């Protein structure tokens, strides 16, 4: 096994991490407003298939990235309507969204199943930086979306903690009645952030397809990354900066078994690795169901609870 393999592993781990950051921060924004959206995996799949189809039809990489954003936003809008306006059970609505995204992506992706990806996002050429040994391919060998994502995560953290809208967002997840009494619409804050969150998840799916996927394969494209993102939200304790650290860790953990497999070293059977996202999700849901753990981790207090103004 040579050093080059490990450099590639790191580079791949970074791009998985990028997808995770996009999706996780989308989920953090959603959950900070008090809405839990378990439909991440469904939105990722829809984002991926949209990117593929648009790329296939137009050959335009930017259009192939823009439409998944819209698709993600629309899917989140469905979830927001169900859980905010109609006050449906958010867990059930989220799971329905996964199943919906799964089925629909399979259906509309059927004609192109197995086809190689039509367009590729080109990495930025940073000249001498990219040519640096080791550091070059790991840090300076990525496309613009990757850098935007990383910078975006930091900006998101600053907005959440240091600005007025951030303050209102944090308060909405914790004490919606307080926000309501201040004359701010709880439903509006929740709608906006659920949709922004969904848009980010859509972009995550689309980008993942175009940057990492080799061919469209409904069953193997996202591989449970959406579920990992949900677990990451809890791991990051609903903080964007911690989500970056977690995403790198998870990205690496997900990538290493593949590298080892490629090197004919099998520590864990691949089936076990494929189970990990779901195990992580189960673990997270168990944690989220105990009030003590929620409090300890700092979960938004009213997470998953519809807001009803108590009038008489």
């Amino acid at each position, binding site marked *: 096994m040579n050093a080059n393999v490990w450099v590639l592993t790191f580079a791949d781990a970074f791009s998985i991490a990028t997808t995770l950051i996009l999706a996780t921060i989308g989920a953090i924004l959603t959950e900070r407003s008090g809405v839990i959206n378990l439909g991440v995996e469904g939105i990722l799949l829809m984002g991926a298939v949209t990117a593929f189809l648009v790329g296939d039809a137009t050959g335009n990489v930017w259009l192939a990235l823009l439409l998944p954003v819209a698709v993600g936003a629309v899917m989140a809008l469905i979830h927001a309507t169900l859980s905010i306006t109609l006050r449906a059970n958010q867990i059930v609505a989220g799971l329905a969204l996964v199943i919906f995204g799964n089925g629909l992506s399979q259906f509309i992706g059927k004609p192109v199943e197995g086809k190689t990806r039509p367009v590729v996002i080109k990495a930025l050429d940073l000249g001498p930086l990219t040519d640096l040994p080791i550091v070059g391919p790991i840090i300076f060998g990525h496309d613009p979306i990757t850098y935007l994502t990383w910078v975006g995560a930091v900006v998101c953290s600053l907005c959440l903690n240091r600005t*007025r809208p951030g303050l209102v967002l944090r308060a909405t997840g914790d004490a919606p009645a307080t926000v309501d009494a201040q004359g701010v619409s709880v439903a509006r804050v929740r709608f906006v952030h659920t949709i922004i969150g969904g848009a980010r998840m859509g972009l995550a799916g689309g980008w993942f397809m175009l940057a990492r996927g080799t061919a469209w394969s409904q069953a193997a494209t996202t591989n449970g990354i959406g579920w990992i993102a949900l677990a990451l939200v809890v791991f990051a304790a609903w903080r964007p900066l911690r989500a970056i650290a977690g995403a790198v860790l998870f990205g690496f953990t997900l990538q290493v078994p593949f590298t080892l497999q490629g090197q004919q070293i099998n520590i864990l059977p691949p089936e076990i690795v494929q189970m990990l996202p779901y195990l992580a999700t189960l673990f997270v849901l168990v944690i989220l169901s105990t009030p003590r753990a929620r409090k300890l981790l700092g979960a938004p*207090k009213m997470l998953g609870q519809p807001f009803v103004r108590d009038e008489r």
Partner: protein
Amino acid sequence: MSSASSEAALGSHRLGGATLFALSARHVTKRFPGVLANDHVDFDLLPGEVHTLLGENGAGKSTLASVLCGLYKPDEGAVLRNGTQIRLTSPRHGLQNGIAMVHQHFRLVDRFSVAENVVLGHRSLPFRLRTSDLENQVAEVAERFGLPLDPKASVGELSAGQRQRVEIVKALYQGAEILLLDEPTALLAPPEVEKLFETVRAMTKAGKSVVFVSHKLGEVVDISDRVTVMRDGRVTGSVARGEADTRKLAELMVGRDIDLSPRRSRAAAQDTLLHLDNVGLRRDGVDHISQVSFSVRAGEIVGVAGVSGNGQRELAEIVAGLQAPTSGEISINGARVNGIGTRNVRKAGLAYVPEDRLGTGLAPSLSIVDNLVLTRERGFLVDRKAALDEAEAFIKQLEIKTPHAHTATRKLSGGNSQKVLLAREIFGAGDNARVLVVCSPTRGLDVGAVEAVHKLLDEARAAGKAILLISEDLDEVLTLADKVMVLYRGSVVHEALGSEVDVEAVGLAMAGLS
């Protein structure tokens, strides 16, 4: 504004025409489905005045306050600010007109700091927030009105009194000139009430007006320049300071003479029925109850006073068998009942009236009849006819106001559902249940219902029950109990016989100052 200028304002009003009232309601009418909450109500507030809206629960005072602050829109009538009509569309709109309301249940974000809570929702804040600037501003406002507050402190760790201060500072920070305080003393211990009064005086000195919404007769007399009394959605009287005593106000409030004089046991207490010996409850390394010992004898009421959250709930649940104590012994009728489970504790002779009467005490969607037979232990089949007869007898005897014995208990008023629960727990179990644990039995009830509940408890005592009364309402404990204990942080810090109680000492003990 000084008192001289407020007199001037009153004078100019008397001269007619130009009203200089800071805030007025004219013929305000507000209807809710099936209820006429405000019926052509008039209300005037002078600048720099403390004005109390007094009334029973359901008298319409909170509704009026909600109309004044913009939460509700009146169906008829008008709200005037400095003599000009305003049409408030929301609490925020009210705030823009300098009117703010501090609700009984605080609307604060526990995880935020004091400063963050205060500035939340203030629309003219800059996009970017500098924590230290905000903290300085908040500290400055707090200091100006003599409200000691650390702007960095996390609100989740503050006491009820401190949280209330945060709410008041929040209103002042947003530029409130008129502050409506809804039942502001409900959650406070006596020393904290005194502090609140000092704050209120500081505010009126600065020309701000304060409206106290309260049903507590005693304290409003101390603080108010004027008291407006409401009953059944109407104003029944408005009196200035010194014009009326408590008795007169009580009459205006309920429309008849009310007997709230102390009730004590007439017979000498007999054998001990409930005994706690060094009972403690330790959970997650915290002592919720520590070393509590007392006994309750047949024919007596032992009252436990204290500010909410000092272990009352845990104590009740331990005695009722809902939680097992981690140390000590509990016995009913001489038999040890530690950790034998709720059902067996009930079998041993305990009846329990929980604080949450509708959620824990009754099954809200079941009828009165069903709720009354719910705790029966004997037989497999339910004798519907007998159950109905019994329910109807209770309805008659206790004057439970209900359309029918088959009405769901959630449709009853608080007082009436409490009567159903008391009927079941006092009489339902017959002579078997001789120990009665009652928690905050009159919380949220109006004066008439309070009187009825107290009468029932008094009768139960006369019938030889041993009653443990755990209540956050100090007046209630003082009215009923033959022995008073004060619970503070899970320990009994003060004990006295009901007839020898020193109210001040009890107040200090409640605040943990003894």
